[in-house]
């Protein structure tokens, strides 16, 4: 103990606004395959939380089942985490959100977890607009069960075994837009800059923020013929704009070129600045979003960036008119009505 304190003094690590080091945002070591896209995303989640100076104990990490769903164990070990059952994390998240609206819900799922078994819960979560960050680590396969196709696998893509997929992919982003999601973004595990910016933006959104992150499975889907391999993704990625994020508490130096910009005010008072890339893209236009996504799909391209945003939609805790104090922290005085209440009820039944 004495030694470690000494060491800390000797070479004090950088800390963020609330005095925590990057290490304080880490979790246990990853047991995923070397080079798995999911690990890259984990790093960016750690970075985003560190830079935003998120208080770890105020975060609840949620996931389903899959390689991707294991990752919450690999970041924010100080936060509570809940690795639920396959495909049904959205319902767990909804319950957590109701019980404690002050928590930041940070969820990680896979494409199988979300788009196959979990599709119904996913859609209903989005419809309710439960406030949370929902990251889909999308590799087009079931990693953990050794490489079967998920519902986001592209038509014609081939498994290592030679089996090829004959069904059209579900595009999580356009589906989310269709379901009325107020924050829809896409990124790529190999693009840390964009990813961390989108993560930060998502954390400021009050409502369900969907982030579909293409995350190659090096073991089962990283070969020719697969459109979700690193090679394919790097070649076909098509960023539509960049995001500079200005958090509420401190200004962050943005290191990319300024350009023509759309400024979006977030619920917590912070701002997202969207810079237009070559294309003129307005993420507040729902139909354009769907159109652009569909066209990109038709051209076998990933459309990345903040694809759609609508800050007006009330989130579920607002709709539910919850008490100011989290329900989980209410005591008997607030939870159990008085004797007069019971008497009144009994009187009515006489």
């Amino acid at each position, binding site marked *: 103990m004495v030694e470690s304190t000494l060491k800390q003094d000797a070479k004090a690590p950088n800390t963020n606004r609330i005095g925590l080091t990057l290490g304080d945002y880490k979790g246990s070591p990853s047991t995923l395959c070397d080079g798995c896209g999911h690990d890259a995303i984990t790093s960016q989640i750690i970075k985003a939380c560190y830079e935003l100076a998120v208080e770890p104990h105020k975060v609840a990490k949620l996931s389903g089942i899959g390689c991707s769903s294991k990752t919450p164990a690999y970041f924010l070990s100080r936060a*509570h985490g809940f690795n639920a059952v396959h495909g049904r994390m959205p319902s767990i998240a909804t319950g957590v959100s109701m019980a404690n609206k002050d928590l930041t819900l940070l969820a990680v799922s896979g494409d199988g977890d979300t788009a196959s078994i979990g599709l119904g819960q996913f859609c209903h979560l989005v419809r309710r607009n439960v406030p949370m960050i929902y990251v889909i680590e999308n590799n087009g396969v079931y990693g953990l069960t050794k490489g079967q196709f998920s519902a986001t696998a592209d038509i014609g893509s081939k498994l290592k075994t030679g089996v090829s997929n004959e069904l059209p992919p579900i595009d999580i982003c356009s589906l989310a837009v269709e379901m009325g999601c107020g924050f829809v973004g896409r990124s790529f595990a190999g693009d840390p800059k964009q990813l961390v910016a989108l993560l930060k933006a998502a954390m400021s959104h009050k409502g369900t923020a969907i982030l579909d992150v293409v995350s190659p499975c090096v073991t089962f889907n990283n070969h020719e013929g697969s459109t979700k391999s690193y090679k394919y993704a790097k070649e076909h990625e098509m960023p539509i704009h960049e995001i500079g994020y200005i958090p509420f508490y401190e200004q962050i130096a943005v290191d990319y070129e300024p350009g023509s910009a759309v400024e979006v005010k977030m619920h917590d008072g912070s701002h997202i600045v969207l810079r237009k890339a070559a294309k003129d893209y307005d993420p507040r236009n729902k139909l354009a979003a769907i159109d652009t996504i569909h066209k990109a799909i038709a051209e076998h391209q990933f459309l990345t960036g903040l694809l759609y945003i609508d800050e007006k939609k009330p989130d579920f805790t607002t709709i539910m008119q919850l008490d100011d104090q989290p329900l989980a922290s209410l005591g008997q005085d607030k939870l159990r009505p008085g004797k007069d209440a019971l008497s009144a009820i009994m009187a009515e039944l006489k």
Partner: protein
Amino acid sequence: MKTLASETSSKVEQGRIVNNFSIHVATINGSGSQSSNNVLMRSLFQMGIPVSGKNLFPSNIAGLPTWFTIRVNKDGWIARKKEVDILVAMNPQTAYEDVMSLPSGAVCISPTELNLEKARQDVIHYVVPFTELANQATDQIKLRKLLTNMIYVGVVAELLGIDFAEIEKSIRRQFEGKAKAIDLNLVAVDAGRKWAKESAAKKDPYYVERMNKTEGKIIIDGNAACAIGSMFAGVSVITWYPITPSSSLCEQLIDYLHEYRRDEANGKATYAVIQAEDELAAIGMALGAGWAGARSMTSTSGPGISLMAEFVGLGYFAEIPTVIFDVQRVGPSTGMPTRTMQGDILSAYLLSHGDTKHIALLPGSVEECYSQALDAFNLAERFQTPVFVLSDLDLGMNNWMSDPFPYPEKPMDRGKVLNAQELEKLGKFERYRDVDGDGIPYRTLPGTNSPIAGYFTRGSGHNEAAAYTERADDYLRLMDRLNRKYQTARKYVPKPVIETQAGAKVGIIAYGSSDFAVQESRAQLNAEGLATDYLRLRAIPFTEELRDFVEKHDRIYVVEQNRDAQMRDLIRLEMPDLAMKLQSVLHYDGLPIDARSVTDAILSQEK
């Protein structure tokens, strides 16, 4: 007929049978007869006579046969009576069969056009010109059908001697705030009354007389009682998906919460009720909320229980509190959604794959629906596990008399939860360590401001520190501790209720909504010369009283409402050495169990 012995004996009392009969009203559902039946039942209740009302309704919105059966009994026996004494045969679809199934000497009140007189000569008929009376009562054609129902109330009331002041009072209560409806219904009742007075000579022996046995009592259904219990238990996250017969539990809870747990000024609520997209989501939300520290619950029926199987296993293994109300209906599959049964005992107890077993409470009355709802939330948080409350349609949706519910004495038991201060003192926290030797570990809630509070919850193998493990020894320790925890629960669940009689060698075991029929049956058995003791189970796992009881008796009859003798089997497994003492009385046709069936079944096995 031997089985009618006790009824026959009361008949002979001066040719009058007072406060002891059943009325069976056959109508078409959606035709508005429910208000009439309620008025009839409440009027009797207000006269101080013990009464119960059961709705035998179809799984349909309108147009199919439905029956309402009222039991009037001076001794307080309010289970369904097997024999119908007075039939009100309003439904042409079923009238013939209804009248044919009457015992000889029963009463049949029916509309002229049904011509039921010819069908049975051994029955006392009152043939009522309902159409004519309705036409006279109103010229609004649309209303005539509705009014017919209130007309039979007038006829029945006049024939039995029900106080019309009480009828009026209950009509005013039923249609509170709707002056027009009150007037019209009073007119209809009066039409029936007049007709009966003027045109129907009293031919039957049934009468009512004022008593004082209902004073201070309430009438309530079990679902409302569960709802009230849940609210006073402090539930704050309620998730549900509509399903008969459980829907009205949450629907009534919503009303109560809206009234008593909401700030009228700003509309803010100390609860959240979520209508989920299905039962998988409902239980997921309840578990999420329980994990995060709220008192949570969901309510469902058979099909929902099946859909919850995977998640409930997670709750057991990852140790997450929540309360699941199962208002049982007739299975398997969709079965008969509007009929009653105790068919989910084994499925709830064992719900989910692998070695799982759950705590289940077994309310036997509306009062226990209330008190066990209170218990259930305490047990769920104390044992950090899903707790079932196994009610059923008969208990949940039918009207029962009860003493008013007492305000909870015990404060909420939130179980072993460590807060930030306690964690700091301890300096160390392991989520799944059996610190106290009772199998129950300590937990922390998300949001706890301490660097050591956080842990990772998972449905996969984990050790004391909540870390992932596939080690054989870790797994064995975990499973054995879960078993230890389950054994600890035996000391916390509600104990059985035992009633004894001098010299009884036969014991009866029952649970849930069978209680009333069993109590009545014991009186019938006594009349037949058979003394019995009675143990009413109130929870799984069983407590030590059960073995004592079985040991002490020569023969035990386990009375239950399912085909496969589910509880009998569970008891046999609990005490294999005494297994052969345990026999079954099974009632599983979907109708609420009645005393006569129980009595006959026991007597036939005692011979």
